[in-house]
């Protein structure tokens, strides 16, 4: 790796000041599983690296029934996946964190890094979007809040300014009878990148299988993660059934605008988006009934 200046600030303010001072040539470092690969292989040569590892306030999870779930941006995937409330109430996030990379990758990779890196295949992005997550972002002029979907601007491009830091994610407590899921398809079983990722969250009426709210988010089939809004609307206020799910899956498939690459052709990805949406609707329904 080329030489760079290295900083490990001990407060968020100090980190933001460092980012501001060093301008375009500076990169934040969290788990390093994207950044170091880019610095070694993709010709990225930052003049300065600001590591977040000393900022303990950016790590950890907290849950409160009234306030919901807070996940620090520098929390690693293994910790997220192991957190009992995440597995029980925010299952799509546990699914996404649990399939990312290997044990080693999950011990290092952070939630903030996965989102800030802005790959359309980021495995925690569709889960965060269907779980209605709001990102808390700190910058030189204070902090702002943004729905996670709005951080994605294009493949590898985010709407974050170079001197902004993702501090954490806030996920509201899901209503009763709500279930969520994330699944991805990869050519290899593990250690591969999604050719299609689908997250679904369904909320059912208290006394029937009528869908009160549906959220569907697709990964890796467009320049950013995308909501399948037409499919969501088709599901809302209707009784869950195979036919309804098949219809919604077709609409989700139509929302996809994938590219062809070595992992799969556009046609294959579009088809798969439909198949996987239908499968995920079924799983979310079962989880919602059990919740």
């Amino acid at each position, binding site marked *: *790796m*080329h*030489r*760079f*200046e*290295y*900083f*490990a600030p001990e407060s968020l303010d100090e980190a933001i000041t460092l980012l501001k001072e060093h301008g375009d040539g500076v990169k934040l*470092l969290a*788990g*390093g*599983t994207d950044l*170091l*690969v880019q610095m*070694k*292989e993709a010709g990225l040569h930052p003049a*300065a*690296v600001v*590591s977040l*590892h000393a900022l303990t306030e950016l790590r950890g999870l907290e849950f409160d029934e009234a306030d919901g779930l807070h996940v620090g941006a520098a929390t690693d995937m*293994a910790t997220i996946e192991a957190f009992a409330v995440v597995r029980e109430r925010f299952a799509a996030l546990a699914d996404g964190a649990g399939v990312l*990379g*290997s*044990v*080693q*990758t999950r*011990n*290092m990779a952070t939630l903030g890094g996965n989102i800030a890196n802005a790959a359309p295949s980021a495995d925690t992005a569709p889960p965060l979007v269907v779980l209605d997550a709001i990102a808390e972002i700190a910058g030189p002029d204070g902090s702002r809040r943004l729905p996670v979907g709005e951080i994605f601007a294009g493949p590898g491009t985010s709407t974050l300014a170079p001197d902004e830091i993702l501090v954490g994610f806030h996920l509201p407590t899901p209503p009763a009878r709500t279930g969520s899921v994330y699944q991805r398809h990869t050519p290899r079983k*593990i*250690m591969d990148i999604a050719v299609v990722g689908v997250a679904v969250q369904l909320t059912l009426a208290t006394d029937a299988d009528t869908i009160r709210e549906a959220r569907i988010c697709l990964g890796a089939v467009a320049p950013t993660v995308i909501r399948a809004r037409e499919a969501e609307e088709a599901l809302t206020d209707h009784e869950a059934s195979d036919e309804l799910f098949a219809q919604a899956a077709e609409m989700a498939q139509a929302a996809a605008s994938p590219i062809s690459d070595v992992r799969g052709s556009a046609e294959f990805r579009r088809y798969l988006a439909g198949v996987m949406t239908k499968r995920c609707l079924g799983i979310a329904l079962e989880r919602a009934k059990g919740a």
Partner: protein
Amino acid sequence: MAEKRTVRYTINGRSHEAYIEPNRTLLEVLRDELRLTGAKEGCGTGDCGACSVIVNGKVVTSCLMLAPQADGAELITIEGLAHGGELHPLQQTFIEKGAVQCGFCIPGMILAGKALLDSNPKPNEHEIRQAIAGNLCRCTGYTKIVEAIAAATGGVA
């Protein structure tokens, strides 16, 4: 701040320090500065697991960790598993099951196995395979490695 600095680690219970530039990875410092050459560089990009070491109780790929990021950490490397001439149970079962061929992947493989057994002393085959999914082996076909880890589940230190 690109200038050299001292990093300190506790490796296998002993203190070590190195005087390095910040653009060195933990793997480079272990191998080139501290002469602990058990961890290997296969890919350098997190895919093969040959560089696996345990940092503060968690198995990581040391090729993707900057040396200063681990400053002050407790490390376990393959060099620390045998005690007083006695092999770690995993080392013993890897030999007994014939799970080692060229050996390049084995330090990482054994540390991934140790990380698994430390948190889950009785893993099933699926859990073992998941635990070593980030460790590539070009020689053995994995079957004997899985058997060796399973065989070590009794009486692990």
